[in-house]
């Protein structure tokens, strides 16, 4: 009996010991750890992101991987909570030998992971999170962002609203109660005050993240009748809000501005009326006016639909940018290193100033590791080709135009916004076409 018991102890400890493995200098494979939501409400982005990553890495490996090294993605559930995420992240780096991490979707996770990546000295590609404060308030050597940030997204949204509905007098906001909802409103509000100081903010509502019911909020908005209702909500929250607002006629009463609606359009189907201002956190859109017919886009949309039965949404494009950016950075670093396998430090250095093509445009990584990405906004329109609303009256805002310059803080930069930005010449416009 005693032997049996010590055997049990030995087994438990052996199980712990079996976990570690050594990282290699010249890898047989490049392990890329990807933090994404596999559980919880944000898995509406996380799971498409993972599905897209599987596709992209498959393609990449079919072409010989990165510098001839096959890439192996390993996933970490962001939905397990920040503290658990941090230990999982460490485990993937220290135990599974990941040299590159993609972290993460939530701004909270990104804020938490950036210092961990610094500690672990691992290349950390912030593949989806948007908080502008990361590179404005901190300096992270090992982290890089391959897409735009909340500042660019909100600036483009503000400019688009000012262009399409310049005369509004009142506005209300209904955002999710967490960093993104609060920060995006703070930015928008700062810019709005600079451009239209006389606008009245009639309600600022921050319902709980994941709230199943917005009836009371909708009643209040119905009574207040604001000209514009802004909501940067997403996922189930946005679907529920739009659904309940539509059923109660609120969408007809006010102009809705939904900068993340691109990710909900297919699901909302017939619920989404015409005339709603929509965006998708960047220039991605499977019906992008300039790129929808490109071979890459066509092939991606087809493959993605074959796999998941739905059209790709913005996190899949963000994943594409992260994967492409990583491959390009390795190639650049490898070339600079005489064709040899680059160190992590060389890879991260290669990211600075890197320019690469995404499915819908070009991404430039600035010296502060922030990506410049164009922003596409539009107004919903119903067309016979699709059972859901599509973008019309589109405007494409160049990343450089709407992104806070290096060294400045977005909030201050927003407060200095000038009206002439609304009609800047670099903004391209398009109407919907088949």
């Amino acid at each position, binding site marked *: 009996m005693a032997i049996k018991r010590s055997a049990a102890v030995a087994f438990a400890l052996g199980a712990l010991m079996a976990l570690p493995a050594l990282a290699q200098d010249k890898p047989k494979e490049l392990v890329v750890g990807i933090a994404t939501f596999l*559980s919880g*409400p944000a898995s509406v982005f996380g*799971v498409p992101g993972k599905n897209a990553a599987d596709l992209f890495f498959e393609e990449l490996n079919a072409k010989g991987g990165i510098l001839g090294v096959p890439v192996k993605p390993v996933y970490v559930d962001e939905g397990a909570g920040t503290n658990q995420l941090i230990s999982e992240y460490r485990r993937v780096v220290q135990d599974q030998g990941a040299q590159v991490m993609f972290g993460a979707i939530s701004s909270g996770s990104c804020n938490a992971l950036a210092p961990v990546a610094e500690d672990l000295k691992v290349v950390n590609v912030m593949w989806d999170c948007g908080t502008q404060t990361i590179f404005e308030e901190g300096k992270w050597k090992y982290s890089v962002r391959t897409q735009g940030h909340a500042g660019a997204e909100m600036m483009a949204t503000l400019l688009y609203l000012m262009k399409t509905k310049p005369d509004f007098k009142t506005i209300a906001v209904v955002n999710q109660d967490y960093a993104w909802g609060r920060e995006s409103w703070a930015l928008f509000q700062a810019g709005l005050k600079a451009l239209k100081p006389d606008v009245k903010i009639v309600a600022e*509502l921050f319902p709980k993240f994941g709230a199943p*019911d917005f009836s009371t909020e909708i009643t209040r908005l119905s*009574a207040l009748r604001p000209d514009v209702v802004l909501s940067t909500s997403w996922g189930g929250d946005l679907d*529920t809000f739009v659904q309940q607002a539509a*059923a*109660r006629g609120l969408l007809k009463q006010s102009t809705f501005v939904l900068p993340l609606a691109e990710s909900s359009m297919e699901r909302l189907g017939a619920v989404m009326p015409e005339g709603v201002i929509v965006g998708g956190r960047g220039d991605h859109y499977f019906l992008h006016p300039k790129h929808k017919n490109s071979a890459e886009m066509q092939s991606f949309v087809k493959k993605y639909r074959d796999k998941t039965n739905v059209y790709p949404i913005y996190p899949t494009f963000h994943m594409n940018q992260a994967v492409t950016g990583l491959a390009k950075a390795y190639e650049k670093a490898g070339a600079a290193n005489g064709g040899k396998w680059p160190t992590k430090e060389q890879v991260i250095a290669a990211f600075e100033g890197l320019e690469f093509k995404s499915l819908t445009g070009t991404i430039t990584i600035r010296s502060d590791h922030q990506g410049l990405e164009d922003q596409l906004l539009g107004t919903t329109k119903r067309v016979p080709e699709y059972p859901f609303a599509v973008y019309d009256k589109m405007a494409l805002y160049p990343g450089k135009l709407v992104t806070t310059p290096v060294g400045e803080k977005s909030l201050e930069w927003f407060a200095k916004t000038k009206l002439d930005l609304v009609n800047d010449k670099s903004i391209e416009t398009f109407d919907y076409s088949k």
Partner: protein
Amino acid sequence: MPPEMLFLAALDGLAYGSLLFLVAVGLSLIFGVLGVLNVAHGSFYAIGAYVAASAVLAAAGMGLPTWLAFPLFLISAILVGVVVGGTVEALLLRRIYGKEEVLQLLVTFAVFMILEDAQKVVFGTQPLFANAPMNWLGTIEVFGIYYTNYQLILIPLVALAVLVGLRLFLRRTSFGRAIVAVTQDREAAMAMGINATRIYLFTFMIGASLAALGGALSSATTSLTPGIGSGMIVLSFAVAATAGLGRIEGAAVAALMIGLGRSAAVYFAPEFDVLIPYLIMVVVLLIKPEGLFTTLQTRKV
């Protein structure tokens, strides 16, 4: 603040409270009879919602009329209660009735964890909604504000029907009276020849069905995403504890209190809407430890 806004806030609170009641009353009933605080109750709510939404979408896909959704809600709820609830009771709970409270609680906690993932595997992670039933019932105008008939009239009516139905069932039918007898004195009821095993199973199924019905009804108004159950469970704890566990009419009053409190908060102190249910629960428990509607009993020595 114009006075009609108060009235409007009350309307919102009524709809919300009604839904809460449906879920919480099942929890309360199960506790009253089995003495088990069922943490997995939120999962029944979530599964009920998912099954109902899937059924409604499938029916719509087959071109069936929209009104069919309402019987489908009921069928889904009963199905979930009987199949999922029945399985949990018969396979797991039945084996631990004599054990310590903490073990019973943990078994339902384990079931909760398993069902959370099972939902994801079966129904996916993408938000799912089936709002046709809500839109089919149309809207009603109150003080210039549109409300959906579904939320303002149907849900409170169903809640009322469940309340009245449960009361009648528990007082007028022999099976219902057997349930009450078990609630009041388990040993005496068993001594009288009441088949406790059967009572437990059916009560658990009824309780689970009620949670699933709440879920089914909410599937028309809200997007279903992973994790909807875990928020609902604490809310129904709050309702059940505020009312006094095992109290059916009490659950209605407590659910209404929490519903009204929450919507009042959205008007007057939007920062505190999520706090309201827990604050009400803490305050009630501090003042009246056994809940609003229970009287204290002394153990005999």
